[in-house]
């Protein structure tokens, strides 16, 4: 029991004692996940919308691929990205292996199917008459897109939270393509794993506490955005 308590005290010291490396790791985690989420939103929302609002041959197959993508284990994603970025791999010339960029790329492939799949489902749930009404208002293609996105704001924010939760807590892919290089590619999850494997429980607990705080704060902020303007049911 002794080392659990010790770990807890140690974590408080690391957190509030101004340990720069802990903050650095937390910030890097946030940076990698936020960047991956941003890229996924920019690609995923238009992609999901395009699939939801148009018909073309092979559409159901694409939807099935996206839905599968939502559940692919991160280690598998990491493996595939690693194979491509490996020195002798197809994209080896880019020298991205064991960099923050590689970690972002891997996480994009985890978050993108979640964002695309959930925005697709949300748009399909919307009454088709809504789209006609927006067109009848005189909206062109892009205006229609924005007005529809505003209609699915609530489920879309749920997609953002799900995707963020998926990447901030993910360890397999970032470990494989980032390598957990101290001071370069170490993030909260990989730090926890390696600290535990070295028996450094206190450091692991500290990073875990930071991860939980980070996760809760961002989700709380996103929830506030999501629920803003929604009428409270009394």
């Amino acid at each position, binding site marked *: 029991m002794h080392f659990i308590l010790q770990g807890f005290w140690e974590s408080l010291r690391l957190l509030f004692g101004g340990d720069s490396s802990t903050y650095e790791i937390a910030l890097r985690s946030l940076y990698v996940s936020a960047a991956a989420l941003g890229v996924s939103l920019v690609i995923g929302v238009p992609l999901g919308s395009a699939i939801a609002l148009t018909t073309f041959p092979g559409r159901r197959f694409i939807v099935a691929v996206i839905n599968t993508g939502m559940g692919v284990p991160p280690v598998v994603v990491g493996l595939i990205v690693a194979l491509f970025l490996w020195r002798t791999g197809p994209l080896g010339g880019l020298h991205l292996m064991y960099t923050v960029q590689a970690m972002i790329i891997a996480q994009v492939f985890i978050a993108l199917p979640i964002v695309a799949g959930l925005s697709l489902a949300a748009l399909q749930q919307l009454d088709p008459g809504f789209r006609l009404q*927006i*067109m009848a*208002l005189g909206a062109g293609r892009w205006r229609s897109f924005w007005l529809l996105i505003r209609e699915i704001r609530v489920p879309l924010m749920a997609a953002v939270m799900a995707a963020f939760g998926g990447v901030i807590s993910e360890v397999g892919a970032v470990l494989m393509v980032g390598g957990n290089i101290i001071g370069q590619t170490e993030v909260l999850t990989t730090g926890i794993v390696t600290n535990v494997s070295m028996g450094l429980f206190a450091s692991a607990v500290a990073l875990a506490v930071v991860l939980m705080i980070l996760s809760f704060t961002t989700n709380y902020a996103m929830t506030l955005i999501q629920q803003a*303007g929604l*009428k409270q049911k009394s």
Partner: protein
Amino acid sequence: MSAGVTAGPAIIEARDLSVVRGGKTLVHVDRFALAQGEIHVLLGPNGAGKTTLMRALNGLEKADGELLFEGRPVRSGGDRLRLRRSTSAVFQQAYLLATTVRGNVESGLRIRGVRGDELRRRSDEALDMLGIAHLAERRRSGLSGGEAQRVSIARALAVDPAAVFLDEPMASLDPPTRRQLLADLEAIFRRLSTAVLWVTHDTEEALAVARRVTFLADGVVVQEGATADVFNNPAAQVVADYLGLDVWLEGTVRVDEAGAVRLLLLDGAELVCGEGEPGPAIACIHPDDVMVFLARPEAAGTSLRNVFEASVRGFRPAGRSRLVSMDWGSHRIDALLTRAACEELDLRPGQTVYAAVKASAIQLLPKGRAAEPEQARTS
């Protein structure tokens, strides 16, 4: 037949227009025109293709054939967008955007680039017109069905459209809400010069607002004409069956000092009615309520009656009874008689008879927009 013609130049005109989906022709019209300032009702049973035709006419759906908007052909997607920007539409559901009532009413204006004071002024006007200024800051979740539909209509009228398309706008509302909104819309459209294409399956709604009626069945136009013409002279069995057996007579209600209510018909003939408010109205006479006599009946001792000297036009079976059609001046009067009564009277086409209706049996429907004199039937 009617000399009634469309009120002005055509805003929207279709020639040989059809909507084909999956190899099936959903709707085909040889010619259709929506004229400036007219309220034109697309009437017909469910599944007749009314909504599909409306969507082809306002640029929501691609269609084959020729479509003209203000005389210019509508062919490309860009043409259809311009058509939609110059018109507006209201559907059975209000489809309000996730914003305030004012935000909704402003949305069409914003899309058209209206900003600042003008945006505020025009949305205020539209809110006032529909009587919903007090709801301006409410969100859609707090509105009743009738309020939401008013917002949708205000949003459609705020853009000052060349034509408004209404697709079953009353179908989701309860009867009192529907009656109130119908009366308000009547008054609003009377003031505005916008053309209105109103899709409905409800004959009373059509009678209350329509100046012209196009009857659609199985994707084709069965009859098109001035409202009174279509209702009184159905051109096909499908129209007659749909409209029912009632006879509709259009005119103006006068109430004299003694309180007697009379409907002055367009050709000068008069009907004595039970009750009604002064103003334009349509009288509905059910053939069940019409009696037929060979000699003029004595009015003494009976309730006040309308007695018309008429000539028998023809018969047709109606269930176990027979429907006798008679010409009364330029009007048609129908009576539903039992087979025995028919044999007893021994009626023949061309024979002069007396049709009688109790004043209390005549139902008056107020009609806001009076028919133009040119619509008087001259046959």
